[in-house]
């Protein structure tokens, strides 16, 4: 598990990996480190306006290891510019990953605050150093009786700083995204909401329980048990799930059957959430999945859950119906509904963007158009990246000042790309089930 942290510190190499990174690191703003980072970057002698204009891209570059096409992929992935703010957050959360872990005295203090006991008094054993770094906290391993537990502890002050950190990102995002303030706020609001939820550990426990229970019937899934008596505002205690992360597991050369089994469990898990529960674990980050010895998939960390509004759901998934791509009138309506195009666009723009989005959708909806899809097909992913490159280099796309796409799309897109990428990593072939109304 400690490998994971290192992994995230390095620059991902292949294109697929880079895209995975975007989706993986997650929309998490790295606590107070953002302030530190930004202060270091900002030369106080420059006046603000100058600074924004001249240095915005420099700052962005130094913040970003993900240069070049990775950015564009993200652009395209979101079907517009709306993932770009996430590029920043990725960056900021990476700054967080290099943050020194919570010192043990502070861990002890946090326990004393909430339980009036030290971790040693509460558990039989408790690891002195963190086993794993989460984006806004860290995980320790503990034992109690015959149980092995994972204890997640949040950094102090993170919850308070989310809003101020986002404000800090705003001016840079504005300049770089070429959006107007109102449009940016449209997305930033969504991000802020999710981030604040993520710092609420009590909500996380409730949601974890809800979703775990609702998904219990899906074969080959495993959810940890949560322990209220050892959980509080800043601490979550759950079962320790032993096993390997996808990458490590793949290194053990599992059989194709096993790969398909895990992939199918993953697909079913998302299918059930999106289409039946209408709320989804919106953080398909490889670190949140653990494959156990017997090929069952353990799912941890329900920090980021997106509730899908009904009207958005209808519009969004109607797009993946194959015949619909052929029906321009209906398509227009959906594009308007999802804010892909608006009355502010000129006719030329409308035609252009409709063309672009239709092309994207037919490509991205591909797994849905067949009954069984082979995600190990790198050629398919290559196609997506090429399209992304092409579009983002297009003048039309660059010069548009419109934010495109519904705010809800932000996390749903992220979820699906995360899912596709995980399945690609798993080299799995899965039955791509669809709800009845789409068949």
């Amino acid at each position, binding site marked *: 598990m400690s490998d994971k942290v290192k992994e995230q510190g390095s620059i991902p190499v292949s294109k697929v990996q880079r895209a995975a990174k975007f989706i993986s690191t997650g929309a998490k703003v790295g606590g107070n480190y953002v302030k530190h980072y930004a202060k270091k970057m900002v030369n106080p002698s420059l006046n603000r306006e100058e600074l924004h204009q001249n240095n915005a891209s420099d700052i962005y570059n130094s913040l970003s290891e993900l240069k070049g096409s990775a950015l564009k992929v993200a652009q395209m992935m979101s079907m517009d510019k709306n993932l770009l703010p996430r590029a920043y957050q990725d960056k900021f959360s990476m700054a967080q990953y290099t943050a020194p872990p919570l*010192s043990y005295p502070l861990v002890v203090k946090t326990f004393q605050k909430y339980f009036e006991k030290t971790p040693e008094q509460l558990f039989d054993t408790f690891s002195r150093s963190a086993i794993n770094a989460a984006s806004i906290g860290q995980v320790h391993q503990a034992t109690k009786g015959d149980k092995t537990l994972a204890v997640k502890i949040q950094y102090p002050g993170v919850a308070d700083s989310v809003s101020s950190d986002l404000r800090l990102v705003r001016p840079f995002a504005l300049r770089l995204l070429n959006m107007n303030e109102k449009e940016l706020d449209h997305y930033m609001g969504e991000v802020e909401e999710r981030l604040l939820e993520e710092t609420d550990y009590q909500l996380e426990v409730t949601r974890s329980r809800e979703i775990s229970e609702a998904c219990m019937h899906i074969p080959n899934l495993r959810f940890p048990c949560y322990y209220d008596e050892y959980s509080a505002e800043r601490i979550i205690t759950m079962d320790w799930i032993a096993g390997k992360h996808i990458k490590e597991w793949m290194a053990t050369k599992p059989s194709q059957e096993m790969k398909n089994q895990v992939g199918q469990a993953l697909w079913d898990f998302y299918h059930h959430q999106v289409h039946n529960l209408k709320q989804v674990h919106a953080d398909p980050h490889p670190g949140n999945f653990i494959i156990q010895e017997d090929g069952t998939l353990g799912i941890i960390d329900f920090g980021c859950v997106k509730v899908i509004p009904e009207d958005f759901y209808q519009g969004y998934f109607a797009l993946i119906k194959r015949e619909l791509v052929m029906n321009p009138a209906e398509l227009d309506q959906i594009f308007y509904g999802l804010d892909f195009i608006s009355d502010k666009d000129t006719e030329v723009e409308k035609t252009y963007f409709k063309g672009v989005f239709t092309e994207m959708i037919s490509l991205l909806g591909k797994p849905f158009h067949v009954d069984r899809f082979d995600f190990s097909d790198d050629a398919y992913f290559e196609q997506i990246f090429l399209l992304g490159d092409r579009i983002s280099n297009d003048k039309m796309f660059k010069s548009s000042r419109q934010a495109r796409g519904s705010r809800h799309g932000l996390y749903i897109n992220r979820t699906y790309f995360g899912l596709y990428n995980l399945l690609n990593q798993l080299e799995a072939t899965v039955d791509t089930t669809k709800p009845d109304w789409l068949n």
Partner: protein
Amino acid sequence: MDTATAKKAGKKDYQKLILEGFVSHVLEHGKEPASIFKFAKDLKIKEEEFYNHYTSFEAIKSAIWVALFEETHRQLEEQEVYKEYAVREKFLSFLFTWVEELKKNRSYLLSLYKDKATTFKNLPSDTRDFKERFTDFASELILEGKETQEIATRPLITEKYDEALWLQVAFVFRYWLDDNSPRFEKTDAAIEKSVNFAFDLMGKSALDSFLDLAKFLYQTK
């Protein structure tokens, strides 16, 4: 023998009575008692008896600071894990425990120091004894840090490290007084970050290697 212990216990009790009486007076009135005469009268002890223990309100305030320190120290010693800590963790642990102690007396400290304590320097008489104890404690830590190589030995500067840690204590106190975050979480973050910064500075760094190189070049030229 019996009378001696009885006397001693009695003396202790008076001290406790005076300290607690002083704190509760400050808590209720938001300021120090008007005079020692008045204060002693309120406590129903003779003024002479008061002088047997303390000679001024400053002495009382100082004793309270020392008591806070002693209590913190005692709690640290009680923790099994404390002995295993590295120096950085020991100091962190000290500050975390100390602010917990402060918290128990927050109202008292706020009424006395909210407006005055821009730095500890303005309160020399109140905190002199506390500083003395703390410096002893800090020196021990620094010595240990040098042994474990956590703290780099630098001529002239190293001797001032205890002073630097003291400034940090003052900084944390000031920060804590103004902290409005729930559960004083910001103070926790401030402690964590400032201590890490301080120990990073005190540890061996690129600067040391640079000075070493500069010295070498200068000497061999």
